[in-house]
C-alpha cells in the first residue's frame, strides 16, 4: 500500500480518526474542573447552590461551555485550508476591531476593552490572539521567509506588535504582555537564542535592580544590593557569553574571573578597611571589559566580541533606565503592582491584599483541600476576582495540593502534547500556529498561577478554561481547535 493510498484512505475514513482525541480529552477535563471551580468561587450563601440557574455565574459558565463545545465542533467540521486562506482577512478584521474598541467600549475598572453586543460584553482582545497567530503563521510559512534574516524577523514582529499597540490603547497591558509569548515560537523557528536571552536578562535586571535598590549589601554598607548584583550579573553574563560564542577561552576567563575577582576585592576593602561605594569599581570593571572587547573586535575582526560588548553596554543602559521606566513609563496601578509584588510597598489592604488573601486561600487548603464548596476564603469573597483571574485559589482551597497538582500536570500534559503535535506538522504554517497556541497557554499558565502563588507580578490575565467568562473561553477554544483542525489535516498530500 503506497503512502498516497494510505493517506487518501485515511482521509476517506473520516475526520474522526485524525483528530487528536487526547488533546480533546484534556480540554474537556479541564473545562469540567474549571466549571467546578467557578461553582465554588461564585457560590453564594444566600442562594445556596443552584448552579444551573442562569442568573448565577456558574449557570452562565454552563452556557459558555456549551457554546464553546459547539464552536469546537463547528471548527473541526470546517476546512483547515479555508481557515489558512482567510488568515490575512481575519487578522485585518480583528486589527480594525481592536483599534475601534477603545472608542466603542464602556469603561470597566479603567479598561476600555469590552464592547457591548446585545446583553453581553465581549472582549475582542481575547479573540485577537488566534487571529494574530494565524497571520504570523501565514507570514512565516511564505516561501523564502527566514527568521534569521532581520527584515523577515521585523515583519513577523510587526504582525505581532500591531495588535499589541491596539490592546495597550485599550489599557489592557496584561493582555498585551501575552503577545510576548510569540517570541517562544520565534525562538523555535530559528530566532537567535541570544535575543530571548537578552529579553530574560532584561527582566532579571529589572526585578533585581528595583527590588533591592534600597537594601544595603551588608548592614550600614554604602552600597545598595540592587545595582551591586545587577553589575555582577552583567559581568558574569558577559563572561558566560564569551565562553559560549568565542573560541578563545582565555578572554572568557579574564573577563569572568578577573572582573569578578576585582569586584570581590573591592567589596572586601569597602567592608573591612574604608567603606566606599563599590558600584564605581564595578562600573569601571564593566567599562574596561567593554573597551577590551571592542579592542579585540577591531584587532581580530570578530563580530562576536562586538555583539557581546553591545550586550554588556545595552545591559548597563537598561539597568540605569529601569528606574525611569518604572516611574515614568508604567501607569501608577502597574507601578504599585510591581512594587507590591517585589515587596517594596507594604499594603495589606491594597494591591498586596489580593496576593496575601490568595496565598491564605491556597495555603489553607492543605493536602486534600476543604472539599467542594467548603472553601471559606473564596466563598466569603476574601480573594478578589476569585472567579476570574484568581480562580486558581478556589482549586487550592477546595481541592488542596492534590487538586492543584492535577490541574498543573494536566496543563503540562496539554502543553507537551501540543509541542508533539506542532512538531509533527508537515507544513510550517501548522507548526508555527501550533507553537503560537502552546506558547500562549504556557504564558497564561506561568503568569496566572505564578501571580496567585505570589511568584510573578499581578498581571490580570485569565487561567485558560478555568476563569469565568465567555470571551476568554471562546478565545481559547477557537485558538486550540483551529490547531486541532489543522493537525487533523496533516495527512493531506503535500502540495
Amino acid at each position, binding site marked *: 500500500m503506497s503512502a498516497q493510498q494510505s493517506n487518501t484512505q485515511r482521509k476517506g475514513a473520516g475526520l474522526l480518526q485524525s483528530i487528536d482525541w487526547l488533546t480533546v480529552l484534556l480540554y474537556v477535563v479541564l473545562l469540567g474542573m474549571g466549571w467546578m471551580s467557578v461553582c465554588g468561587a461564585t457560590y453564594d450563601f444566600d442562594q445556596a447552590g443552584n448552579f444551573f440557574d442562569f442568573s448565577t455565574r456558574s449557570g452562565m459558565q454552563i452556557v459558555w461551555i456549551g457554546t464553546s463545545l459547539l464552536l469546537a465542533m463547528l471548527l473541526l467540521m470546517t476546512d483547515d485550508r479555508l481557515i489558512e486562506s482567510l488568515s490575512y482577512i481575519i487578522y485585518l478584521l480583528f486589527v480594525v476591531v481592536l483599534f475601534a474598541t477603545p472608542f466603542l467600549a464602556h469603561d470597566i475598572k479603567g479598561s476600555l476593552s469590552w464592547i457591548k453586543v446585545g446583553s453581553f460584553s465581549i472582549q475582542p482582545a481575547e479573540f485577537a490572539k488566534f487571529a494574530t497567530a494565524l497571520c504570523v503563521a501565514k507570514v512565516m510559512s511564505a516561501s523564502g521567509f527566514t527568521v534569521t534574516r532581520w527584515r523577515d524577523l521585523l515583519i513577523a514582529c510587526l504582525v505581532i506588535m500591531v495588535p499589541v499597540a491596539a490592546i495597550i490603547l485599550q489599557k489592557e497591558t496584561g493582555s498585551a504582555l501575552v503577545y510576548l509569548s510569540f517570541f517562544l515560537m520565534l525562538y*523555535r523557528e530559528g530566532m537567535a537564542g541570544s535575543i530571548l536571552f537578552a529579553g530574560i536578562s532584561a527582566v532579571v535586571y529589572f526585578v533585581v535592580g528595583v527590588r533591592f535598590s534600597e537594601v544595603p549589601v551588608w548592614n550600614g554598607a554604602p552600597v545598595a544590593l540592587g545595582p551591586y548584583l545587577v553589575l555582577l550579573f552583567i559581568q558574569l553574563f558577559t563572561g558566560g557569553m564569551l565562553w559560549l560564542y568565542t573560541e578563545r577561552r582565555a578572554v572568557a576567563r579574564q573577563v569572568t574571573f578577573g572582573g569578578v575577582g576585582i569586584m570581590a576585592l573591592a567589596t572586601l576593602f569597602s567592608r573591612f578597611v574604608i567603606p566606599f561605594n563599590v558600584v564605581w569599581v564595578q562600573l569601571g570593571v564593566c567599562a574596561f571589559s567593554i573597551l577590551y572587547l571592542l579592542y579585540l573586535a577591531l584587532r581580530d575582526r570578530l563580530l562576536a566580541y562586538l555583539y557581546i560588548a553591545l550586550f554588556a553596554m545595552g545591559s548597563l543602559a537598561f539597568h540605569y533606565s529601569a528606574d525611569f521606566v518604572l516611574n515614568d513609563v508604567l501607569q501608577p496601578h502597574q507601578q504599585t503592582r510591581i512594587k507590591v509584588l517585589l515587596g517594596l510597598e507594604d499594603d495589606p489592604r491594597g494591591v498586596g491584599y489580593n496576593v496575601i488573601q490568595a*496565598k491564605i486561600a*491556597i*495555603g*489553607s487548603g492543605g493536602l486534600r483541600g476543604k472539599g467542594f464548596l467548603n472553601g471559606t*476564603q473564596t466563598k*466569603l*469573597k476574601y480573594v478578589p476576582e476569585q472567579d476570574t483571574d484568581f480562580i486558581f485559589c478556589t482549586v487550592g482551597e477546595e481541592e488542596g495540593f492534590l487538586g492543584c497538582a492535577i490541574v498543573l500536570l494536566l496543563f503540562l500534559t496539554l502543553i507537551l502534547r501540543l509541542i508533539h503535535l506542532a512538531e509533527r506538522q508537515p507544513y510550517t504554517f501548522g507548526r508555527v500556529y501550533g507553537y503560537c497556541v*502552546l506558547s500562549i497557554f504556557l504564558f497564561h499558565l506561568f503568569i496566572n498561577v505564578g501571580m496567585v502563588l505570589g511568584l510573578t507580578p499581578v498581571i490580570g490575565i485569565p487561567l485558560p478554561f478555568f476563569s469565568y467568562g465567555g470571551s476568554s473561553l471562546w478565545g481559547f477554544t477557537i485558538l486550540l481547535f483551529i490547531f486541532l483542525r489543522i493537525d487533523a489535516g496533516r495527512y493531506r498530500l503535500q502540495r
Partner: protein
Amino acid sequence: MNDCIMTTKYELEKRKYVLGGAAILIVVVYLVRLFSLQMLSDDFKRNADSNAFLKRIQFPARGSITDRNGKLLVYNQPSYDIMVVMTEQTGVDTLDLCQSLGITRDWYDRRMAEIKDRSRNPGYSRYTQQLFMSQLSSEEFSRFQEKLFRFPGFYVQKRSTRQYQYSHAAHILGDVGEVNPADIKSDDYYQPGDYIGKLGVERSYERQLRGVKGTEILLRDARGRIKGRYQEGRFDQPPVPGKNLTLSIDLELQALGERLMQGKLGSIVAIEPKTGEVLCMVSSPTYDPRMMVGRQRGTSNIILGQDPHKPLLNRAIMGQYPPGSTFKTGQALTLLQEGIITPATPYPCSRGFHYKGLTVGCHGHGSPLPLVPAIATSCNGYFCWGLYHMFNNRRKYPRVQDAMTTWKDYMVSMGFGYPLGIDLPGEKRGMIPNATYYDKAYRGSWNALTVISIAIGQGEVNLTPLQIANLGATIANRGYFYTPHVVKEIQDEALDTLYTRPRYTMVDREYYDVVVQGMRAAVTGGTCRGANNTWYEVCGKTGTAQNPHGQDHSVFMGFAPKDDPQIAICVYVENGHYGATFGVPIGALMMEQYLRGSLCEASELRAQQFETTHLYKPYDYVSTAE
C-alpha cells in the same frame, strides 16, 4: 545544501526540548511552591479561619438581686450601644447624626478622636466595631434606629443595664461599670467594653452574677457582612446566665435606717445573730443607686466624689471609730475569763478613775459597784480599774507586754483588729493596739496607766460599726458569731463555708450571761432606758465616744429579744453626743421595725422627728456641680 538545511532543521527541532523543559521547570517550581504553602505551614489555615469566622460574643444576663423577703432590688433592662466602624463611616451627615443622638458636634469630634487614640483605646482598629456611645435607653434607641440606614458604619449592639427598683442600699448593691485595663489584665475573661461589678455585692459576687459569655461562630465575608452561622451553629456556645442573689438585707428595715439617718453622718448595722446575716447596713449620707446607671455614671461618680461628706464611703465597714463604752462589754468578758474579776468584784468610782494624777471622768452613780450595775451605768472607773489590775498582775503576766498580748488575743477573738470577712469589698480592719505598737510609740516605757483609755473604747482602739454590731451578735449568741454577710443565698450554689461556720471567742458562755444581765439592766434602769418596751426584752449598751475633732459620737449596741435574739444592732451617729441621744432611740426604732414588722403610731412620730433632725448641712450637689 540540502544537508545543510536538514541539519539546521534538526538543530532547530531540538529547541522543542528547551521549550518543553521550560514548561516542565515552571510546573515543578509551582508544585514546590504549592507544597510549601499548603503542606509546610498551618499559618494560612489559621489565617483563613480568623478571616472567615467571626466569634461573636453573646452576653449572658446578669443575675438579679432580691432582698431577704424576695423583693426584687436589681434587674436588667435592655440598653443599646452605638458602635462605629471607621472605614465604613464615610459620607455620614455628622450634623444629622449628632441631632439624632442628642449630642453636640464638639462631643462627636472629641469622641472620634478618643476612639482613634491608641493610648486610650489600645484595641483600636479601623475595620472593627468600636464603641461610640454606650447605654442608650430604649426611647433614645428607637429614635435613632429610624435613621440608622442613613449612617453607614454605625451599628447598634444590644446590651443590658442594671436597673434599681428602690433608691436604697446603694452601698450594699454597688454598681457595674466598664472594665479597666487592670481588670482585663488580671482576668482574661474580660475584654474592653465589658461590664464588671465595681462596688458592693456587684463586685464581690461578680463571678456568680456575670454568668458565662457564650460564643456564636458566624461566617463573615470580606466586607465584614455576616453570611450566616458556621455549620448551623453546631459549634456555638450559648451564654450561661448569671446566678441570682438573695440578700440577707430586709429592705423595709434598710429603708427605715436610711430615713432615720438622714442629715446625720454615721451608720446602722443590724445582724441576725444566729446566722450572721446582715439585716441592714446603712451608711449615711447615702446616694440613689440609680445615679450609677448608664452614661451618667461617670458624672455621678465625680459629683459624689466631690462631696466632703463622702457619700461613696461605706461607713459601716470603712468607717473606723472609737467604740466608746460599747467596748466595755468586751472588757468585762476578758476580765471575767482571765479571773481578774468575778461578777461580784466591786470597784470604786468617785466621778471617775483617779490614780497617780491621772483622771478618767465619769458621771454620778453609786460607788463602789459590781459588774452588772457598772455595765448598766457605763461606769468608766470600774473598767479602768479592771484593766489596771489586769495589766499590773505580775503573777499572771510577767511583763505588761504579756498582759497586753493576752488582752489583744481576746479582742481579736471577738472579731476586732482584722477585717471580719464580710462579703463586700473594702472592709477595714479597725485598730486594736498590741504590745509592739506601744513599745514603739513609747520607746518601751509604758504601763497600764499609759494605755488606760483602751478599757473604755477610746485611745488607740477603733472599730467599724460592723465590728460593733458583731460584738452585739456575739453577746446575743453568748460566745460565738457567724462571719457577717449580706448574701443569704446564691442560686444553685452554696455559700462560702466562711459564712456557715461559727467562730468562738476565747470567753466562756457563763461570763456572757453576766454581761447580758448588765446590758439588760442598762435598758431597764441604766443608760439605755429609751430602748425599753413591753413587747420584748431588749439588751443594750450605749457609747459616747470622745472625738478630738468635735462633738462626741453617739453609739448604741444592743440586741433583742434577750433570750431568743433575732437582731443585734449597732447605731453610730457621728457628733451625736450621748449614746442615749441618737443611738438608743434609733436602735429602738430599728428593733421595733424588724421584730414587730412596723412602727406603732408613737414610734412613727418619733421616727419623723429623727428624720428631720439634721446634724450637718447636706452638700449642695446642684450648686457645686457647675
